[in-house]
């Protein structure tokens, strides 16, 4: 393909519409237009000029803004579909079967279809991620394709543009004025005072302001690309940790994936608002809603195991710090953060019983069973003893005579005990549950009577490490800079020329906010004599003028 040589002598790259130097329209199509497209200064978007190989074709595909917009539309619609029903993340079920059952039970056939089609886990699906990936590719290629020619054009533009360029600008005026050269000089002065950069070439001036804002869109695209890059990095090992742990008051547990840190819960605090605090302000709300949570926090102590420590033994734990973890105030250490996410109140901690005579209700001693660590026997008064044969933390019933427990969490503790007394030196067997006692080997004289219970709270904590955050933050920052750069400033240019035939021509262009550039021109016209301009695109005003209003 051939480069285009303009009448003015400048050699333009293939496909250029307006001469980079003087602005002449270089092909018939452009000449036929009343107003010229100034979005890329008339430069050729490179991809539109080369279309030979398959690589070119793919490149052009991604360079197209139209394609980019369709990708945005696709992401938009897909994202909306994901909000019709709750996504799996928010569904209270643990494995695939439970999840499928949940959707069917709550949402019926629609729910099942939604689940089967994978829409219930839409944002992690390969096609959604693929769409976002395509958007990333589009951002890279479309930006590269435009910013380079644009930069070159704006650098190469000449002060003196050809009349065929100026007549095709949206704001254009021409006419005869008294002492045109003086007018131009006064205009130059005024524009300089208005902080325009003014260049002079004979009897032509180009006043330019705000070119930097043209780069705004490309800066913000860079920010987005960086952001997407950061998101991609998460897939790499070591960059991202997301774990949960349930920590009971008094417990010390290893913090998952943190390489040697342990957390002890000293206390979990839960507070609600009381009317006494503020009847006037909160009274009405509390009446309507009932109880409103005021604060919940986990007071914890952080420990670190020794450097060469190996899993299993928590000896030699070094105390690091003590903190209260609240919502909005995570515990931070190393690159990790621990967040207060959830809690369970009043989990059973210990139960206190008495060994009693069933008839007389005489007590032969009291003992307390620590549900996390029951002892095998509890010695009471002389000759009396209780032996715990077995313990079922989450008792669910009997299966073929064998007691079953469904988890190690003390939701429904039950005990198989043997009661020893002087009358029964060989022991009486009893199966003690909450509120009920079974006597499987025949009636007993004694029983285990429940006295009281102690509870403790459990904190639900989330452990998070995210090394991609700084990159995401940088991407976000660059995006904001770019979007502000491109939106809050604009690129204005004013051309004023004295033609050979004595006419003075004035033209102006801005990429946005025409009102301001017109105001600027009006300002300049106040001090220097310039021909009246018109907005060749404002149909309403033109109509009004024609109607003589």
């Amino acid at each position, binding site marked *: 393909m051939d480069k285009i040589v303009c009448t003015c002598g400048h050699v333009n790259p293939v496909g250029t519409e307006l001469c980079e130097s003087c602005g002449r329209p270089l092909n018939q199509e452009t000449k036929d237009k009343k107003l010229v497209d100034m979005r890329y200064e008339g430069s050729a978007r490179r991809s539109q000029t080369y279309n030979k190989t398959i690589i070119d074709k793919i490149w052009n595909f991604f360079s197209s803004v139209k394609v980019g917009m369709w990708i945005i539309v696709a992401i938009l619609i897909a994202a909306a579909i994901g909000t019709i029903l709750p996504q799996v993340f928010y569904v209270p079920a643990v494995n695939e079967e439970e999840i499928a059952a949940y959707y069917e039970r709550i949402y019926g056939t629609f729910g099942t279809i939604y689940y089967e089609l994978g829409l219930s886990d839409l944002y992690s699906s390969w096609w959604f991620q693929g769409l976002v990936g395509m958007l990333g590719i589009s951002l890279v290629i479309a930006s590269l394709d435009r910013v380079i020619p644009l930069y070159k054009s704006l650098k190469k533009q000449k002060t003196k543009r050809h009349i065929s360029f100026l007549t095709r600008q949206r704001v254009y005026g021409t006419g005869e004025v008294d002492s045109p050269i003086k007018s131009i000089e006064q205009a130059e002065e005024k524009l300089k005072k208005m902080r325009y950069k003014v260049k002079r070439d004979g009897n032509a001036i180009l006043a330019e302001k705000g070119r930097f804002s043209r780069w705004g869109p490309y800066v913000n695209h860079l920010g987005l690309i960086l952001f997407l890059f950061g998101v991609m990095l998460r897939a790499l090992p070591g960059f991202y940790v*997301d774990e949960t742990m349930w920590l009971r008051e008094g417990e010390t547990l290893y913090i998952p994936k943190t390489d040697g840190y342990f957390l002890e819960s000293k206390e979990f605090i839960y507070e609600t*608002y009381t009317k006494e605090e503020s009847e006037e*302000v909160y009274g009405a709300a509390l009446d309507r809603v009932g109880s409103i949570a005021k604060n*919940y926090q986990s007071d914890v102590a952080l420990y670190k195991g020794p450097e060469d420590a190996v899993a299993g033994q928590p000896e030699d734990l070094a105390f690091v710090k003590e903190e209260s973890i609240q919502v909005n105030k995570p515990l931070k250490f190393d690159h990790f953060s621990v967040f207060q996410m959830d809690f369970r109140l009043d989990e059973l901690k210990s139960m206190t019983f008495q060994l009693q005579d069933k008839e007389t209700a005489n007590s032969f001693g009291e003992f307390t069973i620590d549900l996390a660590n029951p002892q095998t026997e509890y010695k009471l008064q002389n000759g009396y003893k209780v032996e715990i044969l077995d313990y079922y933390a989450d008792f669910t019933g009997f299966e073929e005579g064998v007691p079953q427990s469904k988890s190690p969490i003390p939701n429904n503790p039950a005990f198989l005990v043997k009661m020893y007394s002087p009358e029964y030196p060989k022991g009486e067997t009893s199966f003690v549950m909450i509120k009920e006692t079974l006597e499987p080997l025949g009636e007993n004289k004694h029983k285990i009577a429940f006295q009281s219970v102690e509870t403790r709270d459990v904190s639900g904590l989330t452990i998070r490490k995210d090394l991609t*955050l700084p990159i995401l933050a940088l991407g976000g920052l660059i995006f904001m800079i770019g*979007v502000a750069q491109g939106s809050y400033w604009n690129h204005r240019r004013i051309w004023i020329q004295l033609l050979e035939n004595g006419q003075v021509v004035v033209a102006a262009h801005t990429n946005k906010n025409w009102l301001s550039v017109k105001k600027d021109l009006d300002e300049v016209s106040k001090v220097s004599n310039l021909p009246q301009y018109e907005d060749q*695109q404002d149909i309403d005003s033109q109509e009004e003028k024609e109607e003589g209003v």
Partner: protein
Amino acid sequence: MVSLSSNLLFIAFVAYLIGTFLFGGAVRSSSSESTKSYARWGKMAIIVTIIGFVSNLGYFITRWIAAGHAPVSNLFEFTTAFGMMVVGAFILIYFIYKTPALGLFALPIAVLIIAYASMFPKEITPLIPALKSYWLTIHVITAALGESILAISAVAGFIWLLKNIDMTKKSKQRFWIEAVMYLLILVVGFVVAQTSFAIADYKAEYSYVSKDETEHTIEYNMPALFGMNQSVALTENAFEPLAEMPPLVNAKKLTTVTWAILFGTVIYLLLRLILRKRLAAVLQPLAKKANSQLMDEIGYRAVLIGFPVFTLGALIFAMIWAHEAWSRFWGWDPKEVWALITWLFYALFLHLRLSKGWQGEKSAWIALIGFIIIMFNLIAVNLIIAGLHSYA
């Protein structure tokens, strides 16, 4: 302090109504922009608007002091703040472009927003732990600000369409602009329905079985067109529901929405009967005085100014706060997703303008749809698609 706050809001509300009429006067009074009467109307209108806005700010500040936190923590507070900022954004744009037509349409929208907000529980609620953060102030206020500026672009687009659509010929545009009018009337219907039943002090209690199979009671403030799952009336002579809903559906909300539609439709039909014209056609003369090119420019400018603010508030600050509070900066919950959709949509708006040269009519429709998406996020996502994030 609390009652002072409510009074200030009421004053603002009334001021905006008066402002609407004054802007109407300004628009009607002349065709060219230089007669004295026009200047007088216009000046009075903007002064009254500013008085209203100052009073509105007063409500905001006094409520902040009384509650001890920024008054953007529940649906009522947020929506009123949003309405206030729409007026603020309008005032800002008015001083740049000086178009009364914009005020004539923007103020009633703000009034409607505040009226809608007032239908929800207004008591000052103490902050739950998740909201106890300075990010509440920063994120919510910036997001509301961004949205209100974007709202102005929809108003400008609306005016453009009202002016330029030929109401005498049958067309898709004529149908859809009337559909938008109907939607606005439905909001009015909601306000009228809620208010009417509130004045009548209608209350009826029912028991029902929820989806986790436990029994609860619920109080209806409107006659129960739809009943909750296995509902049984507890109040004497309570309205018998016309249909019972499965546990998945919140029949009380469905009832409210249905009453709103009923009231709204009746109001719409009455208006059509009385006025003998399409509502859009009725408003058209008021829009005729506006300069289309200027409306187009305002619409574009509003998006240009508002988009960065919206990004900052609704996405960036939101992500930072989400990370501090919920350990993850993005969880794809419905409100976050719809904020993203809004953001993508306005990015689309900007690209369509720049790349495809979509100006004038196309741009106006897109701006209008953008506002509908914002409203969807505010209304449907908060009330229907509930999540961790919903207000109500």
